[in-house]
């Protein structure tokens, strides 16, 4: 029996792994004292030559919009309001008995 979550779970796990390996290698260049190299990827050329470079080139706000419209972000949740300089206001009190 396949693991619950199926294809989406496998894709996400693979993507996370490959992105993390690439990020660790970049961090090693930023902090050259880091002791060892990131493990070599065994994901194949499609990942390393096509998918990862394409992902890295897309600006973050475009990625975010794409992830939201593709249903990759959580649904049924209220995003917290985070406008800079705007004071925090407490949640609206509920009507008694509501």
């Amino acid at each position: 029996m396949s693991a619950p979550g199926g294809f989406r779970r496998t894709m996400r796990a693979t993507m996370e792994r490959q992105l993390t390996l690439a990020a660790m290698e970049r961090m090693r260049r930023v902090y050259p004292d880091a002791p060892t190299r990131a493990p070599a990827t065994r994901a194949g050329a499609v990942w390393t030559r096509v998918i990862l470079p394409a992902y890295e080139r897309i600006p973050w706000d475009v990625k975010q919009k794409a992830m939201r419209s593709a249903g990759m972000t959580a649904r049924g949740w209220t995003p917290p309001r985070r406008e800079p300089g705007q004071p925090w206001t407490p949640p609206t009190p509920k009507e008694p008995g509501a």
Partner: protein
Amino acid sequence: MSERLVVIGGGGAGIAAATIAKRVNPDMQVTLFTEFEDVAYSPCGIPFVHGREIENFESLFLSTVDRYVADGLDMRMETVVTDIDLDRRTITARNQHEGFDKLVICTGFIWEKPDVPGANLDGLHYVKNIRKAMEFDKILDTVKTVVVVGATPLGVEMAGNLGRRGLEVHFVDEGPWALHEVLDPDVAQPVHESLESHGVTLRFGTRVEAFVDGGGGRVRAVQTSDGEIPCDLVVVCLHKLPNNQLAAQAGIAIGSTGGIVVDEGMRTNKEGVWAAGDVVEVPHGLTLIPIRGLTGSHAYAQGRTAGANAGGDDRTYDPVWVPWGLVGGDYTIGGFSLGETLATAVGVPYVLAKGVGVSRARYFPGATRTHVKILAEPGTLKLIGAQVHGGEGVKERCDFLAFVAKRGATLEDLAWMENIYSPPIGALFEPIAIAAQNGLAELKKAGQA
């Protein structure tokens, strides 16, 4: 007739859900099923008993089963739930069907097992159940060499504590530094030094290839990409996987992390069914991407929300900014949300603000250096993550930073924050403010602020 709530799971989320539901709705009949003998203890404390920093396992218990029974809960100990039938509104345990009106699923996690030959040998230990930890602790008295596999938070704590106990510890991970999935290499460095000072041999960049049978089905060595490491025992500390089989079989939606999908009321896609703790996925506050495998305090808070709502209340749980912290060897590290490595992996752009301060007046005994690294959004300078390390006060700073990030604070806000100055407990210059001021100065120099 009163409603019946069934809670599956006796960890932090399950206990919180059951007790809060009963408190919100005292007329509700609440039954909790757990496969284990105990509830209400701190599994996170287990490594520190092994390290003999905490004297005994009994200290880890926070309450007793009798106390929950006295509070009106129906506690079904050592009882495995094998099936959920949502059409009939029944669960099956010990071949008996029991009805429910509402259900909270808190089945927690299972450990990832190494996918290499020999993973089923005796002598491989997983840290979870306190009774097993008690038995394991006696075995530790009889051995000399232990291999800890997996530089996860638990792996770091186990390696450090077994080193503190005087054992020869080899700490193995394929990744390049400790906690490499969340921690940045500059913050990992002092953790490495502290672990080594406890006698831990670090073997990062080393892949486990097999566990070697010493005869009779018991491990005698770990075969790695860097040669064979003879050992008496192995402690496996890989990833936590959501224990989702029961929920998935009942048709409850499972998300991209493998966790149960819930909304902000911890409701699943099925009417009258909630879920909480390590088995669910919740959105990250910055990205709204679902994540899971958080801390005990997250599990407890989620359980409270689920229990209150199952009891008839209407509460919400916020997306998470994940403040975290731990002690590696003797060195305290922490953070919230994203570090540089994770931000780079996800592709979130950031500017950096770094600074070093002291935890109390520098002349006061016990003062330690506190390193702060803050990540902020370019342009708006809103906080998106941080990593903090040093001695005292790391935890409080990470909690504070996660909270203010959630409320939209910026580097400007932190640069001009008020802080306590009292020589025994706080220095004149707050390390967070120092980092923010440094960051703003660097940005100004670069023409970005």
